[in-house]
């Protein structure tokens, strides 16, 4: 296995959909890394805002994978990781198009991975901040408290042991994907990152590297489940049930996730429980999640 040392080949994978301005900033910052990625791959979810032309014109060194239709973040990361693996990269550094790195984000991420003791880490994550420097509530790290030895040994090396992470500056080792599989494309959006990283880290080590930082440039700083506009909450409801029914979560993590899930549904009901359309959306998500209907 190629670790996080200088010989590692890194592919930065950015999934985008109709946000060319944010993507341009994301790519500009990726191009200014002190330890540049060996390849930057943009997965374009069939954007209609000129994203493909913008990338070709302003970032000619960037590889563009243009998908024929919008398959969501999950489908985009699935396609991008498969593509990067086929080209022999050791680490897949994944992020949304509103992820803004700082110059040493990747250098620090790899340095953190290199100092990990024991089994080689399969996942390395940056700390994710919002515009005001607070931790982004959508990407709060999930320390692996249930394994105090892992946490203690990680802390000895200045690392935070994790049980999952979100796709905002997360590097996944190719061995992890080859062993545990790609993201589940049928999730379409939301929870696909928690599902994949939980699947890997049920048995493999993964860390947050405190010195590696990024900004998640969302308009507001909100937790994922609180972003209940439109149909998006449907995917949270459905995919979380799929996750709870699957095998990716360890038993105690499943209990924790179930508690979080119930809380998020109650918060949604408090906010929008009087809207018939919102209730319908919730019911549809629950129905499809219970049935496992993911068409």
């Amino acid at each position, binding site marked *: 296995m190629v670790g996080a040392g200088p010989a590692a080949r890194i592919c930065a994978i950015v999934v985008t959909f109709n946000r060319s301005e944010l993507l341009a900033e994301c790519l500009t910052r990726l191009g200014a890394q002190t330890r540049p990625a060996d390849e930057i791959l943009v997965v374009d979810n069939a954007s209609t805002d000129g994203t493909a032309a913008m990338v070709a014109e302003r970032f000619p060194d960037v590889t563009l994978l243009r998908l024929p239709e919008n398959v969501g973040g999950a489908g985009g990361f699935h396609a991008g990781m498969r593509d990067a693996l086929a080209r022999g990269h050791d680490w897949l550094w994944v992020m949304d198009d509103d992820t803004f790195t700082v110059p040493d984000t990747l250098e620090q991420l790899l340095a953190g991975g290199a100092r990990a003791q024991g089994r080689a880490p399969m996942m390395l994550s940056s700390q994710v901040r919002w515009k005001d420097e607070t931790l982004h509530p959508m990407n709060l790290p999930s320390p692996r408290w249930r394994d105090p030895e892992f946490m203690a040994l990680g802390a000895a090396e*200045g690392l935070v042991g994790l049980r999952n992470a979100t796709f905002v500056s997360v590097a996944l080792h190719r061995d992890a994907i080859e062993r545990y599989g790609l993201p589940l494309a049928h999730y379409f959006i939301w929870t696909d990152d928690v599902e994949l990283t939980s699947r890997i880290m049920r048995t493999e080590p993964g860390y947050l590297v405190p010195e590696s930082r990024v900004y998640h440039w969302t308009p507001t700083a909100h937790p994922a489940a609180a972003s209940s506009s439109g149909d998006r909450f449907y995917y949270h409801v459905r995919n979380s049930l799929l996750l709870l029914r699957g095998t990716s979560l360890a038993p*105690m993590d499943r209990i924790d996730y179930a508690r979080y899930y119930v809380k998020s549904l109650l918060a949604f009901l408090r906010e929008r429980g009087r809207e018939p359309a919102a209730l319908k959306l919730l019911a549809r998500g629950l129905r499809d999640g219970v049935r496992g209907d993911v068409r």
Partner: protein
Amino acid sequence: MSGVVAVITGAAAAQEQACRAALAAQEAPIADILTGPGALARAAASDHDRVWVLEGGAAPRPDALSGLLGLADGALRSGMVVDPAGRPLAFALPSGDTFDVDAVIALAAERVLPIRRATLAHTLVPRAALREHGLPDPRYGAYAGDEWTARVAASGGGRFLPASTAVLPAAPPAPRAIAPALRTARTPTWTNGERIAVFATLLRR
């Protein structure tokens, strides 16, 4: 008087000897060493600033105390207890489960973990904590240290420094009594997640 008083708990004569030898080699000065029944109570009644509680037979490395003293904050300061091969002994690992992830990240960069409680195997506390919280409550049996340190950490913060290590030849036998575990889990410093974990552990046993 001031400085640190070391308290060696539950040690047989040979174990106490090993512990004393390690204490004599500490980089940081130790004002007094107390052992035997009531040692913690005598430490509480002393004039020393801090009390360093050690499991009998634990041999702290020379920089163990100076490491704990050098931490910037934390009323509860705990180090790592390892076996002779350097592997952490599970019984003495602290509990984190803090919801302050910002603190977890900031302290990780300093090789420190914020904790909610620890055992009394290799732990430094201000003597004032013994006045404020009293001695560990025997009703909690083998978990009395956990319950007591949880109260200390709740009021003054808790820190775990893995680089501060003490070598213990073998972990003490795991506690078997269920009632003290349940009683401890019901105390207000335990989170619901921790309670669930306690119940799961008891069920597994």
